[in-house]
Structures are given as structure tokens and as C-alpha cells.
């Protein structure tokens, strides 16, 4: 599973994917395979990440230098003072991909249909934390929605077995869900329809890197974004590259993810200061974080592409 | 009652087979008391275990009541050379074990068990566990456990080996009395020639390696017999001397 490059030259860095080896993370292996990292003088080891919190701990412990993380989740934690010492350096998903996903025939076509239903989500995920804000804007009585916690890997089975009526998950997982549900069509209600200011995944580095080694961060960012651009253009090849490094990956599912996330991706990785401010505002208004977090403590705008 | 027909028994070991018993022919009649003597390691215990159905003969047949012995029978009781007491049961509990297993009436046998324990000198030790008893006491508990079953065939493997001379004499005398009043077919392995002469109708002398029947001696003394104080003291001494010589010139 070690995807460390063959060359021993270059700065050694460890990079954590967002969630194992699925389509949304394929660009890292593309950057590796295509030599973008090497060309940038980097010797990157790609490690498979788990949940946002675990990945943050690994960053904090200095076991990794860069990670692909859910920016909204990271900022909630940073805002609560739990983990302020990281900075975003590029956005992968311009908008959050968090969505309500149910199966066709379950009778959930609008947010309102969620009332009186059971909703599954990854234990402690931001999906649940964001729901009140979403519910308010979508006119759902959130008191009438029952939440069920489960590990991420377990969610599809819960939906497919009708243990829950809908999931709050990333919309790019919908293809996999359809496959899991035996071909039933998935109904997707993205949070971004009501909360357009929220970001999705992004590249993150500890303050120690962005402050003390900005050049390293810049080189990494550019190489990774180059991989992202190539991935968006060649989803099939990107999936195959990832599969080569991670044989447990599934090409069809990965291609599906890459295609589904395309509308939310800007390959420039731009992070817009106004939108960051708007997101922080939304998070504070909904009581998810106390006042205090500013765009500059969330994002290193010297490093983040500006447009 | 018990018949052994050209019975041999070998044990496999890493360096070849050991023949414990070879070509044994022996009949024990109903109610007869047969003593078995022989040097240590000659196969006495093996012989009893064959009769008890705990071992199968390598060749030949063992019969009880004419039926081949394939497994232990309820009417044949073996008193093992080791006490083999259950450490979690008291003396009384150990004696009651066969009663429970054979589903005999408990209340009656409880009284009988207590009587037996008293008879072998264990008054006051009924509720002691084996590890609180001396070696000889443990052996006496095992004896009571065999006797309480009142079997038709009683096989005893050195039942008095851990006892002092006097207790031994007392118990041998009691055993004789029991055998006279309610005779069980008995095969009695002993190291004491005097004991064999006291108790047995016939004494079987085994030779060593491989164990064979060297001689069978009829003890033609009237009962009850006693150790050295009877009218037949000279005859008894003669038997003892004869058996002694038989063993000596093995």
C-alpha cells in the first residue's frame, strides 16, 4: 500500500487522503504517477486518511504534512478552538457535497418529506451538525427527524436494508449507493441548494508548514492541483491510475465520483475570501462555532489561489 | 465367572513394544477369592484392568459370565492402585460417588457410607477433603468407595499398600468376614504373601517380563483364618514359604 515515489531526491512529505482511496482522492495518485510531485522536487508518500478528526490528529502529531480534508468540518473544529493550527491552501470542492440521499420509491423527493423519517449519518459527522441550518432554510421541522449514527462504511447497507429512510452523505457516493441498492435510483438533495457558501474538501497543511515553509506548500499545492486538472479531464485514466496503486479501489465507482463532483470543482483551487467569511458567518449564526474564527485564521490567503 | 483365554497385552513405546502380559489362561469361579502376587512391574495392574474392561487384550479373550468383556460392566468394580479421589469432594462425598452414578437410593447408602468409613477407622474424617487426609486415609476412602457398590465381582489392586501392618491386618480380617457373609467373586492383588494366604482360595503367582502365570496355589485352610494365631499356623507358614520361594526363583 505504500505509494512512496521511487526517487529518493526531493523533499519528503506525507500526504493524507480524505477518505481511503475513492474517486474524490484520485488526483493525488495522478499527480504522483504523472511525475508532477517529482517535477516539483517533492517525494510524496500518500497515506489513506480516515475521518476528518483522525486526519487532523495525524497532522497535529506531525505524522503528515498535507491532507485533503472537509474544510467545513475542519473550520468547525478550528472555530471551537479544538484545532486552530491548520490552514487551508486550496479548495478541491467549491461547495459542500453533503446531501440527503434516499432511494427512489421511498417517497423522499423534497426536504419536507424528511419529517417523521429516520436519517442515517456517519457518527459525529458535520452532516449532522449542519442539518439544523439546512432544515431552517429548507423549511423542515428538524424536531421531527430522527438521526441514527453509524460508521461511514455501514451507511449504504443501512439504507439498502431499509433500516433508515435516507442518509446524509456526500452526493458523490450516490453511484455506489445505487449499486449497493441493487440498481435502484438514488434521489439526491444537496445541502448546497440552501447553503451555497459552504466549502467541500480542500488541501490543508499545519501552520508550521504554511508559515515556515511556504515554498514547500506552494510546490505541493501546484502539483496536486495539476493532478486534479488532469483527473477532471481524464476520469477513466485517473481511476485506473489509482487502482494500480490501490488494488482495492473500484474503477466504476471512482469514475462515477469524479464525474459527479465535476460541477463542484474548480481546478484552480481558488478560495474566495468573501465566501469564507460568509461560511464562517453561517456557522456562527447556527451556533456551530463561537465568534472568533476569521478567514485569515482559516485560510492562508498567501498560499491559496486567488482566482 | 471370569475367564481369561490365552490373553496377551502389549504396550507400544517409542523403542518397540513392551509385553506386559503374555498368554494368560485363568478362570475365577463364582464367589471365589483369588489373590495375585508377583514382582513389581510383572503385569498385575494390567491384569485387573483387562478384567475390568478398561483395557482390551492384544490377543485372546476376557470373559465375565461367559460374555466377552468389551467395556466396564456395572457388576464389576475395580479398586485402582492409586486412590483416585475427587479433590472437590469430601471423604463421604467420594464414597457416595458410585451411589449417585448408579442411581442407588441415596439415603440408605449415605448411612452405609458413614458406617464403612467408621469401619475403616475414619470416624471424624467424613467431611474432610482428600488433601486433608494422609496417604493411608485416602486409600481407605477409596476402599469404602469400592465396597459400597456391593459388586458381584470385586477387583482390588493393592488396596492396603499405604497402610501400616496393623490396620492392614484389621482390614484384611474385615474383608474376610465380608467375603464369608456375602461373597463376591474377588481378585486381589497384593504385595503381602501373608495377606494372600489369609484371604485367598487360590493364589496366582505371576512371573516377570513378560507376565505369565507361573503357578496357581490352592490354599486349603479352613475359614475364618487369622494372622499367626490359629491352629493352622504351621500350614499357613508352609504356604507362605512356598510362595516366597516361587517369587524368589522367578
Amino acid at each position, binding site marked *: 500500500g505504500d505509494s512512496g515515489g521511487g526517487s529518493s531526491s526531493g523533499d519528503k512529505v506525507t500526504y493524507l487522503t480524505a477518505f481511503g482511496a475513492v474517486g474524490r482522492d484520485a488526483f493525488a495518485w495522478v499527480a504522483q504517477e504523472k511525475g508532477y510531485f517529482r517535477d516539483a522536487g517533492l517525494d510524496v508518500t500518500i497515506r489513506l486518511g480516515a*475521518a476528518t*478528526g483522525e486526519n487532523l*490528529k495525524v497532522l*497535529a*502529531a506531525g505524522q503528515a504534512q498535507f491532507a485533503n480534508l472537509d474544510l467545513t468540518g475542519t473550520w468547525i*473544529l478550528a472555530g*471551537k478552538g*479544538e*484545532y486552530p493550527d491548520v490552514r487551508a491552501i486550496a479548495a478541491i470542492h467549491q461547495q459542500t457535497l453533503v446531501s440527503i440521499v434516499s432511494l427512489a420509491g421511498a417517497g423522499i423527493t423534497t426536504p419536507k418529506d424528511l419529517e417523521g423519517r429516520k436519517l442515517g449519518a456517519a*457518527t*459525529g*459527522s458535520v452532516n449532522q451538525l449542519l442539518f439544523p441550518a439546512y432544515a431552517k432554510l429548507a423549511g423542515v421541522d428538524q424536531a421531527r427527524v430522527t438521526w*441514527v*449514527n*453509524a*460508521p461511514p*462504511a*455501514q451507511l449504504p*447497507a*443501512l439504507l439498502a*436494508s431499509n*433500516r433508515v429512510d435516507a442518509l446524509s452523505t456526500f452526493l458523490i457516493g450516490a453511484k455506489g449507493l445505487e449499486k449497493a441498492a441493487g440498481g435502484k435510483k438514488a434521489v439526491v438533495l444537496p445541502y448546497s441548494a440552501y447553503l451555497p457558501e459552504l466549502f467541500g474538501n480542500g488541501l490543508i497543511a499545519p501552520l508550521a508548514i504554511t508559515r515556515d515553509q511556504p515554498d514547500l506548500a506552494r510546490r505541493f499545492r501546484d502539483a496536486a492541483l495539476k493532478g486534479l486538472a488532469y483527473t477532471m479531464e481524464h476520469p477513466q485514466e485517473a481511476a485506473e491510475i489509482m487502482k494500480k496503486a490501490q488494488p482495492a479501489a473500484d474503477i466504476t465507482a471512482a469514475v462515477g465520483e469524479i464525474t459527479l463532483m465535476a460541477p463542484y470543482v474548480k481546478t484552480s483551487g481558488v478560495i474566495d475570501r468573501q465566501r469564507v467569511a460568509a461560511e464562517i458567518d453561517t456557522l456562527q449564526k447556527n451556533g456551530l462555532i463561537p465568534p472568533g474564527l476569521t478567514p485569515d485564521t482559516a485560510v492562508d490567503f498567501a498560499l491559496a489561489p486567488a482566482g | 465367572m471370569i475367564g481369561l483365554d490365552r490373553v496377551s497385552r502389549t504396550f507400544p513405546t517409542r523403542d518397540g513394544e513392551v509385553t506386559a502380559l503374555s498368554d494368560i489362561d485363568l478362570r475365577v469361579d463364582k464367589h471365589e477369592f483369588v489373590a495375585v502376587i508377583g514382582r513389581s512391574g510383572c503385569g498385575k495392574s494390567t491384569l485387573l*484392568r483387562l478384567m*475390568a*474392561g*478398561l483395557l482390551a487384550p492384544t490377543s485372546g479373550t476376557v470373559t465375565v459370565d461367559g460374555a466377552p468383556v468389551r*467395556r*466396564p*460392566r*456395572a457388576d*464389576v*468394580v*475395580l479398586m*485402582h492402585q*492409586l486412590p*483416585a479421589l*475427587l*479433590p*472437590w469432594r469430601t471423604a463421604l462425598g467420594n464414597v457416595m*460417588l*458410585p451411589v*449417585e*452414578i*448408579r442411581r442407588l437410593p441415596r439415603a440408605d447408602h449415605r448411612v452405609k457410607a458413614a458406617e464403612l468409613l467408621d469401619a475403616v477407622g475414619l470416624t471424624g474424617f467424613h467431611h474432610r*477433603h482428600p*488433601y486433608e487426609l494422609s496417604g493411608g486415609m485416602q486409600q481407605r476412602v477409596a476402599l469404602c468407595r469400592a465396597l459400597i457398590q456391593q459388586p458381584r465381582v470385586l477387583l482390588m489392586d493393592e488396596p492396603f499398600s499405604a497402610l501400616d501392618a496393623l490396620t492392614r491386618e484389621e482390614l484384611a480380617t474385615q474383608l474376610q468376614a465380608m467375603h464369608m457373609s456375602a461373597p463376591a467373586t474377588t481378585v486381589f492383588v497384593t504385595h503381602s504373601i501373608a495377606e494372600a494366604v489369609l484371604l485367598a482360595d487360590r493364589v496366582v503367582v505371576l512371573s516377570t517380563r513378560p507376565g505369565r502365570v507361573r503357578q496357581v496355589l490352592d490354599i486349603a485352610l479352613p475359614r475364618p483364618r487369622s494372622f499367626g494365631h490359629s491352629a493352622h499356623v504351621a500350614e499357613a507358614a508352609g504356604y507362605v514359604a512356598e510362595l516366597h520361594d516361587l517369587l524368589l526363583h522367578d
Partner: protein
Amino acid sequence: MNASRPVLPVAGALAAIGIWWGATAVFGIRPLFLPAPPDVVAAFRAQPGYLLCETGATLLETVTGFGLAVLLGLLIAVTLTASRTLERAALPVLVALNSVPKVAVAPLLVVWLGFGPRPKVVLVLLICVFPIVVATMAGLTSTPSELGELSRSLSASAWQTYVKIRLPWALPQVFTGLKVAVSLAVIGAVVAEISNPSGGLGAVVVLSGMSFDTPLAFAAIVLLALLSTALFYLVVAVERLLVPWARAIAG
């Protein structure tokens, strides 16, 4: 000797806490990774009712699952030792099934058995049963040959042999299995609760972990450790009660 009865374990516990505390202080470990004892105490004192209630939930699942595992484990062990054929055919399958990681099974159990306590009890059962089976089988096959001959020569039925001789003899070894199993039982309950955090200390661990409240997570872990230790010593106490003779015949 007797006066020191409660002193020693307490001393051991204090030493352990001391090392823990010292480490957090000396290495300047952040509470996020390893909170110091006072943080944990504070976390507990913030919501003792909630934590104790969740402890109760975990305890109930653990005890139920453990109890079922004892019954099932003894049954399996007796069955497998009764027939050599059965043992040779079934034991490998049992070993293979046991090696399926319980963490991977936990989600499936929820799918099959729902969100209630049932999948948790079943997971505890699954994780406990194997040590009990292995230890009981070892105990049942270690009857000394003279006791084996005794029961055979008494023509004891298979049932009687087990109840009167082999099982009592095996008890000390059964308790070895029970001691291992009881500490796995708590772990099993926690694994199930982590995978389906609808209650219990496992849910506290995972939920507080998600919200980066490591002291609360540690308060739950400390309660788990206490729970597990209490159950372990309960098993030890039952052992002392049931097999005093084992210590008497050992030297």
C-alpha cells in the same frame, strides 16, 4: 499480609495514575492526545449522571452477552470433546469463524438485528465464546487418566462423567477462559456501541472523540476500565467460591 489487602491494589492503581499524570506533564502532551487525570475527573464531574447511566447500559449488554457466551461456550466445548469426529470437523470452522474480525461484523449485525441492544449482546457473545470454548475444551481433555478410568469403571453415562468428574476437574481452566472472556466482553460491547452509537460508554467514546472532547472520552474509557476490572474480579470471586480445592491441591 491481611492488613495490606486493599492497600496493594490501590497502590498499584495510584502508581499507574502517577505515571500517566507524570507523562502528560513531563512530555507536555496536549489534552487532545492524552488528557491529564484532573481533566478526566473534571469531565466526569461535569455530567456524572449521564456517564453512570451509559455505564449501566454497557454493563447490561456485557453481562447479558457474557452470560449467553458462558452457556453457549460450555455447550460447544462439551459437544466437541464428546466426539472426536465432531471436534475434527467443527473446530476448524469455529476457528475460522472466530477469526472474522468483529469490527467488520458489527455493522452487519446492525443491519440484521436493528438498532436495539440485540446486535450489541450478540457481538459480546461472539467475542467471548471462543476463549471459553478453547479453555473449557482444554480443561475437559485434561482429566487425569485415573479419574477417567474411575468414571469408565463406574459405567458413568457421558452426562454423568461430565457433570460429576470432567467438568468439575475442568473448572479451574474454565475460569481461565472466563477471565479472558469477561475482559473481551466489555471490549465487544464497546465495539458494538462504537459502530452503532445509540447508547453506552462506547457511544460516549466515539461521540466525544468526534467533537474532540478527549477528556470526556477518557472519562468513559476510565469507567470502562473500572467496569472491566470489577467484572474480572467478580469472576475471580466466583472462582474462589466454586473451586477452593484447586488452590488447596496446588503447591
